[in-house]
């Protein structure tokens, strides 16, 4: 697998090639761990997905029965797919561009920027468990901060049972998730902004370029790689959203916040069954959907934007 082209001597001379032994040494620790603790479990999961696993681990091959049940009759799964897609797309965009906005505010020499950099980052440091609890209180109908503020500023008509109403629950959880991760994106963007060559911004100044124009024509294009990569990271993070939803709504009300991850967990641990086959099938199908999506995206974008923090 690690064969280079040509003789041993040639390889040492080529700056972009290395001896198989060198490559192996570089890759081995990561690959071994990865093989043992990720690939192997994945294979077991794929294998599980075509089985029904009964009492004491007796397995029955069921072929694609799990999958056809999933595709044909499991309305919760499809609801979960829809919710996850909505959550992923909206929250990712809000997260990345919100983070950019915050970074720009700090970059524009807002007062107390060093302090704000810490304060604005605190949500990132809190665990989901605590964030979840706090925000359930904030969204509480009676004494939650959200409704109290609305009432205080005379918008009492807009008060909501934020997490209790299927129309607002997903959006409310989404807002909390974005709130938690904005600070992270902000820091990455801030570093990228500071890394921008000063001359470029200076030149724009000379061209009598306004802030908005500078942003649209200079800063954003130069931050493109950072934007793209934060979008990817964010996308993957949101796609697997679990903890926060599990704590805040448990997927309810009426499956309006059910995501694929919560559904998998529910089917694996919360149903009266030890059958791992079905939840494995859910996970496998989901994996395939995402993989197809990502391959499609790469085909569409076809560019080599890579990380530059």
């Amino acid at each position, binding site marked *: 697998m690690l064969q280079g082209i040509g003789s041993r001597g040639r390889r040492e001379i080529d700056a972009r090639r290395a001896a198989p032994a060198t490559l192996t040494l570089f890759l081995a620790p990561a690959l071994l761990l990865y093989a043992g603790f990720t690939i192997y479990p994945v294979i077991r999961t794929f294998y599980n997905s075509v089985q029904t696993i009964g009492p004491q681990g007796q397995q029955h091959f069921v072929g694609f029965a799990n999958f056809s049940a999933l595709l044909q009759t499991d309305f919760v799964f499809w609801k979960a797919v829809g919710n996850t897609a909505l959550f992923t797309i909206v929250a990712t965009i809000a997260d990345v561009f919100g983070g950019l906005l915050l970074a720009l505010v700090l970059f524009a020499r807002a007062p107390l920027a060093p302090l704000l950099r810490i304060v604005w980052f605190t949500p990132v440091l809190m665990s989901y468990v*605590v964030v979840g609890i706090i925000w359930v209180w904030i969204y509480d109908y009676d004494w939650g901060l959200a409704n109290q503020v609305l009432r205080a500023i005379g918008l009492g008509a807009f008060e909501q049972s934020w997490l209790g109403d299927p129309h607002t629950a997903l959006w409310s959880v989404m807002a909390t998730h974005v709130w938690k991760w904005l600070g992270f994106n902000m820091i990455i963007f801030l570093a990228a902004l500071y890394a921008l060559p000063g001359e470029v911004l200076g030149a724009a100044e000379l061209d009598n370029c306004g802030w908005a124009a500078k942003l649209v024509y200079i800063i954003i294009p130069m931050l493109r790689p950072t934007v793209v990569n934060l979008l990817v990271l964010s996308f993957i993070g949101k796609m697997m959203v679990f903890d926060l939803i599990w704590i805040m709504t448990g997927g309810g009300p009426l499956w309006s916040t059910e995501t694929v991850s919560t559904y998998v967990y529910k089917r694996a641990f919360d149903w009266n069954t030890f059958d791992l086959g079905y939840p494995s099938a859910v996970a496998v199908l989901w994996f395939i959907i995402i993989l197809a999506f990502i391959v499609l995206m790469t085909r569409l974008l076809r560019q080599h934007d890579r990380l530059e923090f």
Partner: protein
Amino acid sequence: MWRRTPLLLFVLLYTVVSGGPFIWVAVMSVRTTPEIFASPYALPSRFHWEKFVQAWAHSNYSTYFWNSIIVVSTAVVLITIFGAMAAHCLARYRFRGNRPIRFLILSGMILPPQLLILSLFQILLDYHLYNTLTGLILVYVAGHLAMTVYILEGFFAQIPQDLFDAARMDGYGDFEIFWRITLPVGAPALFTTVTLNFIVLWNEFLYAVVLLTEDDKRTLPLGIMHFMGSHQLDVGMVATGLMIAITPVIVLYALFSDTMIRGMTAGAVR
């Protein structure tokens, strides 16, 4: 000056929104649960510092804390080194198998961990690593390698080839180049992954609960769960536990955020 008013308003508003909940938790950590329930947003009438002592002494918090330090720091160090090695190799060398290996590692990013845990558990048993900190560390490392390799590989690929050529001509071999060029020049990306991995692992819960069953081996997030019972939600103690868990992270961040940002930018390759 008036032009800046909207900016200042925004800054003020977002500061309240982002820092408010943390301040709220901090305040609750020195109030008792009945006080909190009676008036959730009030300031403490009396500071109940003894709650910290109680959490620390009675609830095994010192053990949890120590375990968390061991597990998280070991895992983060291993993830960073192994991840950087693999990323360096994938970004720097052309070889057959480069793309498949990259694809293999990166596709690991999109696996839901809720499911992997079932087979992981059985595998840990096979390896006799169940209910050990070592097992948890290895699972953490494997679980976060993909994302780390992804971030680092992207960054390393941006380091100009000339730097490596120069080092090669200066007489350095592959491993020395990795150690003396890639790692220091890649520091900004390493900062990013270390921060991200540290935060995520410090709060990790699902693997910890399933893979560790002895109280003496539990980590901090499980300790906090201690106060979040099914019947009694001891809000005050949850807040206290959270403050114990979060304070070191915030202090570290406050001490180093400056260095971190400077590191991220100063080392950047132009």
